[in-house]
């Protein structure tokens, strides 16, 4: 007899075959001694595996008590959630602190620059005082990009002052505002989804 069905015998033995395949295997087994013998040997193997006595484990009660002792005291699900929640609310706090820090830094640097212009900062460390060579470099850069061209000296002065003093402030304030608005949008989405979840549960 050809076309043996040995590859299906394990599945047949385990009761995993259905409908057409099951009938095909049963019909084949009724006629094929070779496959029937193979099935018998698989059955014997299964019997041998299940004839093994169960090992002597620690009692279930004692095992459960040992596991209980080793469990973390707080629910990890809750602690993970509260850590995430803490991180979530730290975002606006961090943004506020960053805004205060940069604002203070900006005011202080302007005060220092003014004091320097008035000649009040003699004997102060050099890093505190705006460097005139840095200012000259900045002016050179603007000139390279053609931003200081033209006959209007007032416009050139405004451009230089604005790009050196105001533009960085505008950039960081807009960046912080954008991050904060994104956080607000996510907060709104979270609240909306929570409300929907409660509606589904009720």
């Amino acid at each position, binding site marked *: 007899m050809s076309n043996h069905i040995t*590859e299906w015998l*394990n*599945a047949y033995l*385990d009761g*995993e075959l259905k409908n057409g395949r099951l009938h095909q295997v049963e019909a084949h087994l009724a006629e094929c001694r070779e496959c029937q013998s193979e099935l*018998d*040997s*698989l059955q*014997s*193997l*299964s*019997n*041998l*595996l*299940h*004839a*093994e*006595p*169960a*090992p*002597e*484990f*620690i009692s*279930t*009660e004692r*095992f*459960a008590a*040992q*596991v*209980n002792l*080793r*469990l*973390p005291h*707080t*629910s*990890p*699900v*809750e602690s*993970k*959630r509260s850590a995430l929640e803490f991180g979530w609310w730290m975002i606006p706090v961090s943004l506020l602190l960053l805004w205060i820090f940069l604002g203070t830094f900006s005011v202080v640097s302007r005060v220092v620059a003014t004091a320097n212009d008035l000649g009040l900062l003699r004997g102060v460390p050099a890093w505190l005082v705006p460097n005139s060579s840095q200012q000259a470099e900045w002016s050179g850069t603007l000139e390279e990009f053609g931003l200081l061209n033209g006959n209007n000296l007032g416009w050139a002065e405004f451009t230089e002052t604005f790009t050196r003093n105001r533009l960085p402030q505008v950039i960081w304030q807009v960046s912080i505002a954008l991050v904060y608005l994104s956080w607000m949008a996510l907060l709104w989405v979270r609240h909306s989804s929570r409300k929907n979840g409660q509606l589904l549960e009720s």
Partner: protein
Amino acid sequence: MTIGSEIVERELVLKAQKGDRNAFNDLVRTHATGVMNVVFRMCGDTQVAEDAAQETFIRAWSNLGSFRVDASLRNWLYRIALNIATDMLRKEKRILPGDLEDFYLPDPQLGPEGTYIQTEQTALVQKAISSLPEASRAVLVLKEYGELSYREIADALDIPIGTVMSRLNYARRLLKESLQEHMLVLMEAEHV
């Protein structure tokens, strides 16, 4: 598992997910033996099996938040247990059941000679299982001792059903070759 016990288990899981340690303790008691047995068949050492089973439940507690209550807890635990057992075996290289006689309860009705034969046979069978390739061994253990269906094994090990079938066929073929002698004795005994 009956429908009633499934509902009870689902309620226990929901409570445990909220941090109820007593509910989790009940789940541990329900599944402890099954998990220890599966790990033992995987590694052949009761001490490793108990350690791996404890680690399984601790990891399960830590990850219970990600467990879907409509899924099978037993299959999920078996999956964790097999991963832990495999890691432990790789680290400790403690596999062969050299001291198996210390761990089995021999049948008192067998007498001294029968007990000796049974213990020897047990050791040989476990040695044959332990010498299977890891991937095939995991499938065989889940089928024979975890009593999972092919679909459940596929889900637990995250492999296709076709792979479950081929690994099981391969594992049984290897076992038949290594345990042929004992199977013949068993077959003769069955026919007497």
